[in-house]
């Protein structure tokens, strides 16, 4: 698991990216299921193991629920990344909700401002390989997570 290096939304280095992107609008608990099923389907196209597919789908479920619970609506973006060095999936959860006052606090196990277990973000962090979060009070939150294929593509 690597720490946040840079905001995940900027342009990527290199021109041989083959990125395919799917957006799922999130506004209800039905959308949570839709998002994780879409993520699973997209990740399966890359050939992730069934265990990884479950980890990815579970992470998407947590991220989408955070959106419904705290921001009411937002979107999940699932991006397939194939480049020379590696391939994997990028999951971005974006909302224009209230934002998070203390990000460090939300990444602590057991912390929650709602009735949930507070497993959300620390859990997602453990399920995925990379995890970045940007949040501004009153502006919204963007969580970017990535999972890479175990075997690099050649």
């Amino acid at each position, binding site marked *: 698991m690597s720490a946040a290096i840079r905001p995940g939304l900027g342009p990527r280095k290199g021109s041989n990216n083959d990125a395919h992107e799917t957006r799922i609008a999130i506004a209800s*608990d*039905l959308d*949570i*299921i839709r998002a*994780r*099923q879409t993520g*699973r389907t997209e990740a399966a196209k890359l050939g992730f193991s*069934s*265990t990884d*597919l*479950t*980890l990815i*789908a*579970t992470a998407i*479920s*947590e991220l989408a*629920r955070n959106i419904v619970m705290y921001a009411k609506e937002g979107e999940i973006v699932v991006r397939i990344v194939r480049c020379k060095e590696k391939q994997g999936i990028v999951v971005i959860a974006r909302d224009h909700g209230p934002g998070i006052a203390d990000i460090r606090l939300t990444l602590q*196990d057991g912390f929650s401002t709602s009735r*949930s*277990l507070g*497993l*959300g973000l*620390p*859990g997602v962090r*453990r*399920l995925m390989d990379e995890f970045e979060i940007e949040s501004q009070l009153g502006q919204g939150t963007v969580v970017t997570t990535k999972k890479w294929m175990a075997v690099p593509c050649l």
Partner: protein
Amino acid sequence: MEVPILRQGQYLIASIQSALTDADLSHLREALIAQVGRSRCRGVIVDVTALDVMDSFATRTLRDIAQMIRLRGAETVIVGIQPEVAFSLVRLGSNLAGVATALDLEEGLAFLDRQIKGAGGNAQSHGSRSTRKN
């Protein structure tokens, strides 16, 4: 999507058929709590074989179900957690502590039989339920 709840002897079997929304899960909890009293059953089996994802909400709801059913005087066992789901639950740090689990429906039924026989078929003391707890 509603989860069918079947009665078999002194047990209730809730067999989840497909992915459930949060509302579906909450509804299942209410339905089981109500039915366990109505049918005066001694045990509840929740079959999650069909669930390909169990996130923190699902596990919290299952734990709530098990605790509430116990307060109503019956035992709950969760059966059919898939290997991938088990892996993800461990990673997630999901808390199913204190909830009985079994491999499949057959094992779940055997577990409940042991629990109830062990308690002489009557009200169970806390000390009598010790096997196969997470």
